[in-house]
């Protein structure tokens, strides 16, 4: 057993235990760790924003750059400054412009990406090809996938009553959804346990030195 002499390891270990104490019940140790975490994260976030965004992306190009195109940066700065209108009751409406700009730009950027990643890939993956029916098991597996995709889409059909064929298809779709959720749950829980193992290794190896 080789207990760590590094004070930072001790601080990290004590804070880990303070957070884990929440599993028993709310207590002053958890409250301390929670408020410390939140306060630090706000401060850290502000510093990261300043040094990773404002200084390299705005200040440095404007103050030290030579490219004439650097003055284009004044446009997003002006739009961004409108957000501060929220502090005035009279000018709070100004925030609508940066919001509209952000939502519009993000939608324009994400629509083609979503089409390609979520729709086209799904369509081409669902269309059964000769290769996908090569063996009986592969054929059964791909047929299940095909039925799963079609029935799940019908569950998300909102503008028709879920009655008759549509209703039956939607009910089948929700069965597929729940099966997928169950599989995903088990898979993710395993991943979370590996995070717990990592923390236990820190406590038992790095801090207490009980395990090698």
């Amino acid at each position: 057993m080789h207990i760590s002499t590094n004070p930072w390891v001790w601080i990290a270990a004590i804070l880990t235990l303070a957070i884990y104490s929440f599993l028993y019940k709310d207590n002053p140790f958890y409250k301390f760790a929670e408020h410390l975490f939140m306060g630090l994260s706000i401060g850290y976030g502000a510093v990261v924003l300043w040094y990773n965004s404002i200084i390299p992306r705005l200040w440095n190009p404007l103050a030290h750059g030579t490219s004439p195109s650097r003055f284009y940066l004044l446009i997003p700065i002006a739009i961004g400054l409108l957000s501060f209108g929220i502090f005035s009751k009279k000018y709070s409406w100004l925030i609508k412009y940066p919001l509209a700009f952000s939502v519009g730009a993000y939608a324009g950027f994400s629509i083609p990406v979503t089409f390609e990643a979520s729709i086209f890939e799904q369509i081409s993956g669902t269309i059964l090809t000769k290769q996908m029916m090569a063996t009986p098991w592969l054929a059964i597996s791909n047929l299940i996938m095909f039925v799963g995709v079609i029935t799940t889409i019908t569950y998300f059909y909102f503008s028709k009553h879920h009655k008759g064929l549509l209703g039956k298809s939607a009910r089948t779709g929700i069965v597929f959804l729940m099966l997928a959720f169950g599989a995903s749950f088990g898979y993710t829980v395993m991943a979370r346990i590996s995070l717990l193992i990592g923390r236990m290794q820190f406590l038992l190896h790095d801090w207490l030195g009980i395990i090698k």
Partner: protein
Amino acid sequence: MILFILFSTITVKAFDTPNDGGGSITIKAYNVPETVKKALVYRKTEGDTTYTLAGVMSILSYRYVDADSTIKNGKPYYYRVDFYFPDTVISVVSDSPGIAYAQWYDKSKTSSLIFLIVFSTLVLVFIQLAKKDPEGLYIRKIPALDAIDEAVGRSTELGKPTFFVHGLLGITDAGTLAALTILRRVAKKVAEYDTPILVTNFDPIVMTASQETVKQAYTEAGRPDAYNEKNIIYLTYEQFGYTAGVDGLMVREKPGAIFLQGYFFAESLILAETGHSVGAIQIAGTTAKEQLPFFVAACDYVLIGEEMLAASSYIGREPVMLGSVKGADWGKAFLMGIIGIGVVLGTVGAILQSAGNGALMNVFEKILAFF
């Protein structure tokens, strides 16, 4: 003699990388013998006397994309590629200089453009129809929405507050916008029942939007005096700091109803489990498909993915939102049709191909390639 043959057969071409925003030149080698072990690409500009190393060419594709930050659009660049054989090195110069240009249109995105036009047209048509007759567009009932009244009512009976926990994405996320519409419905009910509400925010802009939404809901309920801006709080912009803060609030305030709405990540189960442990009725809604299983397991009602967006249309009953849902439904029918046609073409095409007629299979493969 062998070297001469090798030298004379390998050719190198430098050309503008297609479908990009400029600043990139593609160098492609042709007729390269398989015995090549390594290929290095060198670049020079007009006026330079020597070449400088640009990068390593792949010996699988014999292609190299030079996207160095020094590449300027409209300026000619000369390339030389050194091919390393087991016993010699052969240098081949590109037959013409490469010049980078920016393209206005990315041809590889044509399929996206066609689908965008089809979807947008459907949505616009249904928005117009919804404007003419908003009651004519039916949206099916969503059970989790009916549970909102039940949850707020239960909170009131127990004399406990109602919590509304926003997800971790900003105002640009469709799920966050839908969460704000759901918040409006919750806040209106809370105002009618005179129950305290606490809204936690991860994003400061979402907090501002939440304040406006709750204020409007209290005004609509005829209780503007009961609105308290301090009940819509910002915690932190750090994932687990936010989680720790919300968990702490849950165990101390012991809410009767908790709404977890928006895009969540790994904190979803921690939040839902804590809410469950304090005995609150929980209604979750997220478009994060990876987190849905946790909400399904730990919450009483869940708005699954697009249900959340449809729910906001159901609540709002605004023509734009109703028309969007109807248009999206037609879009889904269109996609199902394409999948069905693809399956028929692929199956019949494979049967005909086995019989010696590959024409239908060619059509099918072209459709697949389109995506």
